């Protein structure tokens, strides 16, 4: 080991590199953190409340409840608990997060600051309209941006997330068919490569789902689609660019075929980031499309939400929107809240949509502007193609490029190595990256779907590519044990998911009850 002039060791010799067992189980910055319920002290409290005045209870026949069972902690303990937990998460703020189909781009903090202006965050949804003109103006402005970027005739901001937007779109399609008295349409066509939400949505709305196969070049098989189209088909749900990261070259022919058969063309807009500001969905023959503000328009994913899934509609479906929506009358904005006021099909959510997300998305759109959004799509596609170009000789791209905003590989390059897609993903974690999307789409074997987004620098992509190339070589050299043991440097190593599902433990229970249950 090397020493400095004071005799202090300055480097870590190989003998020191093993992670030592510590007394606490903590490992430097990785600190073990018990459940909040395991830190309880009765009577301790993290807030100071005023004395509750003497009162007459007015609960009618309902009795005040006995104990709730919540733990008592002081504020510093709570702060430390959540800070420590946060440190066990990977996040976009920490590094490359190339989850295909998820568009994990940088989340600007200006968005957060704007959403927290009291004029937006501290406004009640049922205040008189005269006191919320600015909030309604913001919704109207966001609607204008979404309509202009997509070229579509109408938009609803109501849906809470992408899947909720899908539901909204399918309900609109159904309403349009019903309005024409066309009730014989019982099927929705969905390509094999679709997100799971598409068939789930169509089925939830009472449609039979029919799958459309892909061609060898990863696109919808137009002939197979035409063969399935008929008077029993309500519409097609298609993601474009599709989940293989490819643009559907025959999209105009697809739209024409669907329309020719009397159906509607629903586009899953999860991958809108590839084309935002460069291509308008209206020019592709699309009738209805949802947009994930939490993907394309940079609102944070927050560990699983909240999202926001506005839906844009072509003229053909524009009359079939849910309530509420904003209208402008004599210079004032007004909310239409009841379906009875127009042909709206109903309501999807309490109140007016995910306002907090609207503010963030609009802050992002205004920051980039039309010129910046053009560059967003350009750089997103450039980054994905660069990654594909740099990896194509050591991994196996599933389809020829160019790709759009994400590139798809399958596990042929791992054939005979004993290493799986999952193993590669877990080894990437040790290298300091979040893994790509694994095993999706289902149309290729052992899928690895990489979406870098436009907010990654070339240096970041180069480092990722270098790591992935080395891992691919390592896999081919037969070092199976290395991969199966990964990850080794995380707060937890591989977790027993089978055991978790077999005997689900879905909540903490007090130790006394735990002991009882074990008996």
């Amino acid at each position, binding site marked *: 080991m090397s020493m400095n002039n004071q005799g202090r060791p300055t480097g870590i010799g190989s003998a020191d590199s093993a992670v030592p067992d510590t007394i606490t189980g903590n490992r430097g910055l990785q600190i073990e953190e018990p459940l909040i319920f395991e830190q309880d002290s009765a009577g301790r409290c993290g807030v100071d409340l005023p004395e*509750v005045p003497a009162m007459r209870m007015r609960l009618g026949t309902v009795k005040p409840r006995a104990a709730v069972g919540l733990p008592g902690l002081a504020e510093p303990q709570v702060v430390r608990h959540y800070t420590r937990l946060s440190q066990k998460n990977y996040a976009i703020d920490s590094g490359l997060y190339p989850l295909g189909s998820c568009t994990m781009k940088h989340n600007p903090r200006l968005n957060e600051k704007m959403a927290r202006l009291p004029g937006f965050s501290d406004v009640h949804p*049922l205040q008189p309209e005269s006191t919320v003109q600015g909030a309604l103006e913001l919704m109207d402005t966001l609607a204008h941006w979404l309509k202009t970027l997509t070229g579509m005739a109408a938009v609803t901001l109501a849906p809470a997330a992408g899947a909720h937007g899908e539901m909204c779109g399918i309900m609109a399609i159904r309403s349009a068919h019903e309005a024409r008295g066309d009730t014989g349409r019982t099927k929705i066509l969905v390509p094999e490569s679709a997100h799971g939400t598409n068939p789930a949505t169509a089925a939830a709305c009472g449609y039979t789902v029919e799958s459309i196969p892909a061609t060898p070049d990863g696109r919808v098989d137009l002939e197979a689609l035409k063969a399935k189209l008929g008077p029993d088909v309500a519409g097609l749900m298609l993601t474009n660019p599709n989940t293989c990261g490819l643009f559907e070259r025959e999209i105009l022919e697809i739209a024409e075929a669907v329309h020719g058969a009397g159906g509607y063309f629903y586009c899953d807009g999860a991958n809108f980031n590839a084309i935002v500001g460069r291509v308008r969905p209206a020019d592709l023959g699309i009738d209805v499309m949802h947009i994930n503000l939490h993907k394309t328009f940079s609102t944070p994913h927050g560990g699983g939400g909240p999202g926001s899934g506005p839906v844009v509609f072509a003229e053909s479906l524009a009359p079939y929107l849910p309530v509420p929506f904003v209208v402008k009358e004599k210079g004032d904005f007004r909310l239409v809240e009841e379906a009875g006021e127009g042909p709206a099909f109903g309501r999807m959510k309490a109140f007016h949509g995910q306002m907090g997300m609207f503010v963030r998305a609009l802050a992002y759109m205004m920051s980039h502007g039309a010129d910046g959004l053009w560059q967003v799509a350009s750089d997103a596609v450039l980054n994905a193609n660069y990654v594909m170009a740099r990896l194509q000789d050591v991994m196996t791209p599933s389809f020829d490029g160019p790709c759009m905003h994400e590139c798809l590989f399958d596990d042929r390059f791992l054939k005979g190595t004993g290493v799986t897609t999952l193993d590669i993903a877990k080894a990437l974690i040790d290298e300091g990256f979040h893994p790509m999307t694994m095993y999706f789409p289902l149309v290729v074997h052992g899928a690895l779907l990489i979406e870098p987004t436009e907010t990654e620098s070339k240096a970041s992509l180069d480092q990722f590519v270098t790591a992935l190339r080395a891992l691919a070589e390592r896999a081919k050299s037969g070092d199976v044990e290395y991969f199966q043991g990964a990850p080794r440097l995380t707060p937890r190593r591989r977790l027993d998911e089978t055991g978790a599902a077999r005997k689900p433990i879905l909540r903490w229970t007090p130790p006394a009850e735990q002991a009882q249950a074990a008996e």
Partner: protein
Amino acid sequence: MRYLPLTEADRRSMLSAIQASPIKAATVDDLFRDVPKAARRPGPIEGLTNHMGELEVERALGSMAARNLPAGSCPSFLGAGAYRHHVPATVDHLVQRGEFLTAYTPYQPEVSQGTLQVLFEFQTQVALLTGMDVANASMYDGATSCAEAVMMANRVTRRKKAVLSGGLHPHYRDVTTTDARFIGFEADARPTDPMGSEDLAALVDEQTSCVVVQNPSVFGHVRDYTALAQACQARGALLIVVVTEAMSLGLLTPPGAMGADIVAAEGQSLGNTLNFGGPYVGLFAVKEKYVRQMPGRLCGQTVDADGRRGFVLTLSTREQHIRREKATSNICTNSGLCALAFSIHLSLLGEEGFTGLARLNHAKAGQLADRLAGVKGVEIVNDSFFNEFTVRLPKPAAGVVEELAQRRILGGVPVSRLYPGEMEDLLLVAATETNTDSDMDAFAKALSEVLS
């Protein structure tokens, strides 16, 4: 552009690597060659502004924000499913930690133990509050939770008729009836029940999948649903209890103790601001035996390769990404960060804080009711309530509320806002810990002036 790290030199060098690869594209335009020619725009889309600096964006959005009246800037008594409570500073600080804010759904558990442990704790807190066995990792909001609860009851009972109480928030009712129409089940929405006097037990028959009640009701009435739960059970139907004010769970006998099978609730009151209606956080809790019919994500405890406790998303064979068209729901993204805010707020409150705060809310509402009862022409409709109640006015409530707003008082929600054309003389009024004595005095005084 501040969000884009690539330089022109980077772009050129990347394109030359792409040109040298089998992709063969010399320009970015060429990377878009699969897009039909007619759909390729020659340049940025017209009709929108170009990029702006932070300062300009702040000015533009700031001027929109300034045209709204923040509830905290004046005496405010609005509820009807969204409540203004004080959120401790710690909550927003922790929620904004990038590791929580900018993480995705925890699909890679080894690098998501933070989010996963939060969800496990959240599920436990929701189960404790509602008095149920198990809760999921959240839904979009209370209204969609309610609709999903009905669909779950339909699956469990293999029946297709839901009875919706006339005390159910009309937005919750409308979301459920919209789903009913498209998904294909019957939703029997009962007549509006401003007095809290309906009796639903007689409506439960062998075709009924569930009865949905709200406690406190949208009009504020508090009821014991134990007998209704028994009536449902006797006929093989489920009782769904909706809660739109989660704070009430700190004082009232919880739905689980009344015999509810499913609880669908709005969690906005804890940790989350009003946000003009969203994002909020739907709570969803059930009896243990129905776990595998639940919608949404579930976090479960397990062990890692070294035998240490850890957490994963589990029972995902219910979910769309595995089960596709056979999934229990199409929900994917939920309300993760709002659930985190809920959980942090509740951790700060603890047993003493949560129950104390609930009592304080009840006390404030009692004080407000007494004050308003003293205003000439005002009649308190409720004999029971938690922190919100209905008053009858001698003239249409919408106009009164508008006049109060001109005096910078947000004096409740006119019932006609929720039920257009109906009960125009009724007003919903809520009080929370944020309302001071002088707020209440100002409200009573202004109301008396407007009514005189």
